[in-house]
């Protein structure tokens, strides 16, 4: 009943008449091997752009086809596509089709930007992740779905905060001073990254519900990305959402719930171990010989055995009692708080999705709604999203089609402060608070004696601080298509990306005593509009010369603004609004805009389905650039040769073999919106008048960073599709990098931004997919991808190194971005437990000098990244395990290293200290117990002298996702009127194998971190275990 109602509503809504004077194509699609009906197989008549999907019984019908002869394709993911020539007359033509399993890959369609292409005709390097790969993966973000699944796309979590941001890096760091994010396009809408929340790590793609995603395509090389010109140097990610299919309305409801916990814990020592350590440090510092018995210097009488430091420990215990206080009323016991457990608690997630999809020959639709609520581990951090998506395709009249894609979402995040050694951030507090410290006193009140006082007591931060952001986002595209004749069509579309972000923060008078509490509110808006018009042409001459192409224009305007307010002084915990504050403190606001206008086009020529030539060009003008360089031209050329179609390669095992080669240019326009202008900025004031002074010199020649890339690839499909994949090799030189060239300061300016510098990224990528076993209902499929890459700085301004002696951010020609320069660690002197280093000549030194003795050690470049997965299915049961890995990246764990390895500030201590040197002859890596890093005479500070021992290997292999599904057999579901019932359980980040001893080997400071070799109190990645049910009817 419901279905009928829904259908009627839609029919009414879109009451365009159908002009039926023609025939009908119908039939059933089944599995060639088992004879079972295939549900959701696609039937598509390309020449008239008509199609449908098979229903639960495998049946399909396409009505109102003009009489004529058509090639109809029958497609089903994981099966060989069948192309049938069908003659349609005035009646009904029935075609029952059997599809053979296993042949997948090159018959798929690929969305390559402004057009859909058959994968066999692709000449660039494009990675695809389809919804089949993503089913039952419980993740909040679109970016995380891609992690490990597309070769050469390196994705790193910058924050474990649910809904947090990712660093997405396609084929290496191509820029130093401009943004390095790829261009994201959702159903044709280019997404803006302006004005994100200032309070939580977040991504504009949070608006998308991952279960609405049909496929994600990554345009990796210049030949395929050049169609996006000046925005494409860092690659393009194209996200396509699920469409409706003609047929009876299908409703899918899905519910799941789960728990979220820290993916990894760090081991810290207990209070007793702390006291032992300090007592030992005190004694040895005092001059006690660890090998000799001695008389206690405290009372001058007690005889103590060698290595017994009891009186020193007692002294420290008493000091700690006075310094940290005691959690018990008697005041005689030290606390032993596990701060990690206090700060990172388990969170609960729940998710509900409902979708309805269906339609008839002229109209198809898919409507879906989703709600998700996920609690993070750190205090109250969470993510909630409510979204509604409507995708409608409709035939307005003969040759006229329109489509609407509309996504409305409201996402909320409760964030915590993170990423830095801040005394009020929970991730750093987990390291800053010693076990002797404690959150609550025995009477339940906040302990005022935590490491940084009452206002920074972690319990106060948890309960008295609230930082939330709410994002309302509309992503929509409306498209109109006109088929002028059999070879020419026109397309116009209008795209909207509107985002409103509201940041609110409240701190009670306990958390902000100086201000007597405060409330801040920020309102941020992004209005990002695009419109384009495209003419498409496609014609085959003499049966073998297939020529197609398009030409288009596009316009984009990206306007953003923000208003920030804050009021201090709250009358009590009753109000959290600005009106309740006594003193307005901040009223600030800015707006900014950039615009882009573009011409673009491509021409494809395919000869005899064997030789493919593709020319792409885009001409972009951008308001960010100087008058002289406002317009940039980005061409590419690529070619493909389907060797398998040649007569000489008539090998049965080879189904498809295609060689691809492409070269092209793309640009990076992600610089400041007004970087090329001569500007005067508001600066200072005198006697009530605001000053204006020159802040930036005009730079009429400021231009794009340009990436030139050559890509050579091979697509293969062997053994009837049992084995397929691709190999790609590339070299990408990004030139004309933006750098600030210093100006003589007597000119009144510090620097001017100019196009100088170059970076090279090279790499090889492999994708292998296989169907290992298909036997009596059992099926085992594998997939694997790996990318090897290298990064090198080719050219810097005047060839001069930048920050030459900087440990982590040096830029030197011939070295990668993210080179780490530290002195070599020589271990602990077994004789006296002193730390030792090597000087430049390789001699042991106790006082190394970084600028002289440092060597090029490791770097932050993850040279080898990828993923692999296996899917096993038997009847209704399937198990999927997907692993993701990253090798080659080394990094410095700033907070852990500086604050948890020595007791200088009486903070947490890692269990590394238990391996300390204790008596002469001990060979170990941790020095003698110390009261501070400076304990050793004439020796560098052990805490702050960084060395090769401070740099850790951030390589890892992670069981990213594992899921188990069970679909009830049809005989049960049919009986209750349901099409399908599936139970599932899944886990994310379940196991990680790594040598990284701290929270999280995924090291990236921000989405635009180019060094990736330093992390400081980042919100660690979390583990999630979910279970749920999906019902289709």
């Amino acid at each position, binding site marked *: 009943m419901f279905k009928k109602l829904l259908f009627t509503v839609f029919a009414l809504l879109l009451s365009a008449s159908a002009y039926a004077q023609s025939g009908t194509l119908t039939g059933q699609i089944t599995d060639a091997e088992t004879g079972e009906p295939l549900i959701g197989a696609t039937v598509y008549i390309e020449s008239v752009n008509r199609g449908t999907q098979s229903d639960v019984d495998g049946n399909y019908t396409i009505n109102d086809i003009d009489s004529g002869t058509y090639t109809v394709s029958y497609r089903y993911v994981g099966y060989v596509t069948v192309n049938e020539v069908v003659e349609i007359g005035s009646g009904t033509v029935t075609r029952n089709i059997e599809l053979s399993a296993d042949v997948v890959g090159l018959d798929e369609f690929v969305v390559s930007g402004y057009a859909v292409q058959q994968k066999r005709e692709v000449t660039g390097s494009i990675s695809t992740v389809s919804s089949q790969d993503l089913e039952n993966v419980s993740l909040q973000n679109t970016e995380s779905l891609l992690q490990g699944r597309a070769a050469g796309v390196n994705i790193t979590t910058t924050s474990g905060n649910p809904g947090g941001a990712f660093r997405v890096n396609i084929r290496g760091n191509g820029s130093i001073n401009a943004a390095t994010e790829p261009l994201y396009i959702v159903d044709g809408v280019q997404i803006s990254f302006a004005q994100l929340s200032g309070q939580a790590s977040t991504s504009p793609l949070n608006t998308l519900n991952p279960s609405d995603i049909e496929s994600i395509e990554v345009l990796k090389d210049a030949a395929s990305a050049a169609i996006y010109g000046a925005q494409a140097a860092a690659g393009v990610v194209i996200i396509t959402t699920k469409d409706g299919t003609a047929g009876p309305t299908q409703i899918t409801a899905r519910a799941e719930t789960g728990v979220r916990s820290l993916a990894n814990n760090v081991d810290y020592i207990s209070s007793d171990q702390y006291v032992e350590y300090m007592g030992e440090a005190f004694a040895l510092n005092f001059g006690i010989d660890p090998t000799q018995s001695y008389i206690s210097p405290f009372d001058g009488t007690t005889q103590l055995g060698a290595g017994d430091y009891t009186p020193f420990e007692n002294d420290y215990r008493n000091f700690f009692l006075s310094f940290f206080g005691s959690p018990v009323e008697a005041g005689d016991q030290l606390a032993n708080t596990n701060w990690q457990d206090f700060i990172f608690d388990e969170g609960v997630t729940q998710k509900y999705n409902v979708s309805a999809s269906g339609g008839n020959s002229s109209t198809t639709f898919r409507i879906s709604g989703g709600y998700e609520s996920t609690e993070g581990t750190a205090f109250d951090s969470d993510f909630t999203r409510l979204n509604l998506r409507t995708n409608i395709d409709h035939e307005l009249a003969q040759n006229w089609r329109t489509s609407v894609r509309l996504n409305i979402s409201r996402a909320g995040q409760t964030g915590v402060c993170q990423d830095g050694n801040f005394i009020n951030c929970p991730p750093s507090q987990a390291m800053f608070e010693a076990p002797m410290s404690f959150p609550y006193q025995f009477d339940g009140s906040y302990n005022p004696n935590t490491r940084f006082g009452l206002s920074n007591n972690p319990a106060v931060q948890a309960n008295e601080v609230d930082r939330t952001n709410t994002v309302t986002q509309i992503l929509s595209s409306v498209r109109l298509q006109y088929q002028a004749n059999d070879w020419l069509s026109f397309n116009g579309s209008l795209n909207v990306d509107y985002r409103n972000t509201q940041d609110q923060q409240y701190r009670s008078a306990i958390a902000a005593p100086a201000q007597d509490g405060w409330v801040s509110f920020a309102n941020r808006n992004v209005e990002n509009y695009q419109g384009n018009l495209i003419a498409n042409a496609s014609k085959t001459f003499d049966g073998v010369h297939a020529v197609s192409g398009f030409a288009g224009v596009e316009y984009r305007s990206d306007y953003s603004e923000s208003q920030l307010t804050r009021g201090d002084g709250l009358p009590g915990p009753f109000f959290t609004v600005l009106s309740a504050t006594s003193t307005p403190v901040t009223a600030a606001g800015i707006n900014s805009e950039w615009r882009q206008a573009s011409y673009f086009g491509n021409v494809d020529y395919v000869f005899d389905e064997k030789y493919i030539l593709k020319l792409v060009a885009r001409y972009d003008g951008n308001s960010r650039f100087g008058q002289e360089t406002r317009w940039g031209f980005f061409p590419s050329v690529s070619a493909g040769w389907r060797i398998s179609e040649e007569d000489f390669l008539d090998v049965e095992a080879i189904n498809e073999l295609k060689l691809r080669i492409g070269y092209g240019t793309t640009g990076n326009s992600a610089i400041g919106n007004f970087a090329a202008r001569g500007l005067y900025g508001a600066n200072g004031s005198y006697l009530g008048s*605001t000053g204006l*002074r020159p802040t930036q010199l005009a730079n009429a020649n400021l231009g794009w960073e340009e990436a030139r890339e050559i890509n050579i690839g091979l697509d293969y499909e062997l053994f009837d599709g049992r084995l397929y994949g691709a190999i790609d090799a590339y070299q990408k030189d990004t030139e004309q990098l933006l750098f600030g060239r210093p100006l003589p300061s007597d000119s009144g300016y510090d620097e001017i931004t100019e196009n100088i510098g170059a970076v090279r990224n090279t790499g090889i990528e492999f994708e292998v997919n296989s169907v290992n076993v298909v036997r009596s209902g059992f099926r085992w499929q594998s997939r694997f991808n790996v990318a090897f890459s290298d990064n090198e700085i080719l050219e810097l301004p005047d060839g001069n190194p930048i920050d030459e002696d900087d440990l982590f951010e040096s830029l030197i020609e011939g070295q990668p971005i993210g080179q780490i320069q530290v002195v070599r660690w020589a271990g602990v002197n077994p004789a006296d437990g002193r730390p030792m280093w090597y000087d430049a000549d390789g001699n042991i030194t106790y006082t190394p000098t970084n600028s002289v003795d440092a060597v090029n050690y490791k770097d932050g470049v993850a040279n080898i990244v990828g993923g692999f997965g296996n899917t096993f299915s038997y009847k209704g049961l399937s198990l999927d395990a997907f692993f993701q890995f990253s090798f080659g990246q080394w990094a410095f764990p700033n907070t852990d290293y500086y604050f948890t390895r020595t007791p200088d500030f009486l903070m947490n201590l890692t269990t590394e200290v238990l391996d300390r040197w204790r008596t002469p002859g001990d060979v170990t890596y941790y020095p003698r117990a110390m009261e501070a890093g400076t304990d050793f005479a004439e020796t560098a500070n052990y805490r702050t002298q960084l060395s090769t021992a401070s740099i850790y290997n951030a390589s890892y292999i992670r069981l990213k996702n594992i899921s188990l599904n069970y679909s009830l057999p049809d005989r049960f579901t049919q009986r209750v009127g349901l099409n399908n019932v599936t139970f599932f359980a899944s886990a994310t980040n379940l196991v990680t194998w790594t040598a990284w001893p701290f929270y999280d080997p995924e090291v990236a400071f921000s989405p635009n971190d180019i060094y990736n070799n330093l992390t400081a109190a980042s919100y660690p990645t979390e583990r999630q275990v979910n279970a749920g049910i999906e019902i289709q009817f």
Partner: protein
Amino acid sequence: MKKFKTLKYALVAALIIGFTGCDSMLDGVEPSTSVSSEVVLTSEDGVNALRASMYSKIRENFSMTTEYFIGPSAFTDETRNRPGSTRFQALTQATGTSGGTAHLDNWGLYEIIQDANLIIGGVDASVFEDPATLDLYRGEALALRAFAMHNMVRVYGYEPGNFSQGPEANWDAGVIVRTEPVIDLADADLRPRSSVGDVYTQILNDLSTAKTLLSGVNSDNRFVTEAFVDGLTARVNLYAGNWGPAAAAAQDAIDNFPGSLVSTATGVAEMFDENAGGHPEALFKIVVNPDTENSTGGGGFGNNGPATYTADGFLAQLPTQFLLDQYEAGDHRLGWYQDCTTTQSNPLTQPTNCDAVNTNGLVSVKFAGEKGNSVDDMPMIRLSEMYLIRAEALAKDQNSPAAGVTDLEILRTARNVGAVPASALTDLDAFEDYILDERMRELGVEGHRFYDLKRLQRDIRNPDGSLKMRADSYRILADLGSGLLNVNDQLVENPGYE
């Protein structure tokens, strides 16, 4: 079907229109917090704002505030660090051969010169309805350009006539002279240091033009006045050893300044307190708003203002007993020194160990943050300095200590101390010693001590009299540093630092 035909034409027409004239769509995008240079330099409001920036830059620039006033004392013998404090510790510890390269460093004053140059040479006379307004602004800009240049040249170069003071004979390198506005990239050329002589010539020319443009402008000492131009002319001539012009300009300043020396005990003691005296002797004072211009966002103040270095906040640089010993009992100026616990405005951090620097734990209250938020107004030149300049210049011009006595005694009388002792009048050297002491008493912790010792080629000593830097040490001049030299290969480093 007709509507679709229309739609079809519309679609094709839009496509054709789209293909033509995209460029204009890119225009009209403007930043919200910046404007183009044309807007500023061609409107009255714009030039007014540029002038505000020029004055604001004095407040914002550390070299024009805390370093200007406190640095020369910390570098010599007038102040020392309260134990536990670190502000300007490097300056107090810097010695002839060690102590790193700590020195006064005010190359950044070019940002004031940049604003001044735009007003002087970048604004067309037609912008103002009343051309007198622009003349007034140009006069101010010339004076402030001269002021900035003189402050720099006394840090990086020897005074005229002293060129063989240091390790290298006849070392007369000054600073870069830049008198045209930098409007586009081509203007930001690389320039060598001009000779000290050329720099002084430029400064005196600027001051001479400024005096003409500001003739009779003396009523509001919150802006540059004619009396300030006179006072600065006197100071520059004194440094250059032009005794006659120095004395004459100092007299002009005294004549043109509407006020006179303060002579009551309370008046002197409260002279620097904005809530009481409010700088009655300032030829020009920079006024700071404690509410909006206190933080680093407003520039210069907050944790870095002169008060936080001396009487409030960090209480880092306290007057030495050597300085306090210069005063006789009854000197009104002893009111400038108060117990350190009374001046600290932050009740949470009571200062300790003040008595380690001087016997009674006193601080100088010339900058004590009375306006709130550790903020003070800043008297850039005071009237009393004019009497001291006259006394020194006249004595040296006429080669007779007696010629300087009158002016010295006018000042001493106002400060309630007696006649100049006969011992100071035996010869010019004795008189110069006495003038130096009187300058300490009057101008202590106000930005003079190091420059006085330097221009008179005296050794720099610690408060206990021990040698800190000999007058012929290369360390008397500041280094330019590799940062400047790397950018500009025309620059030469001062001797000893290469």
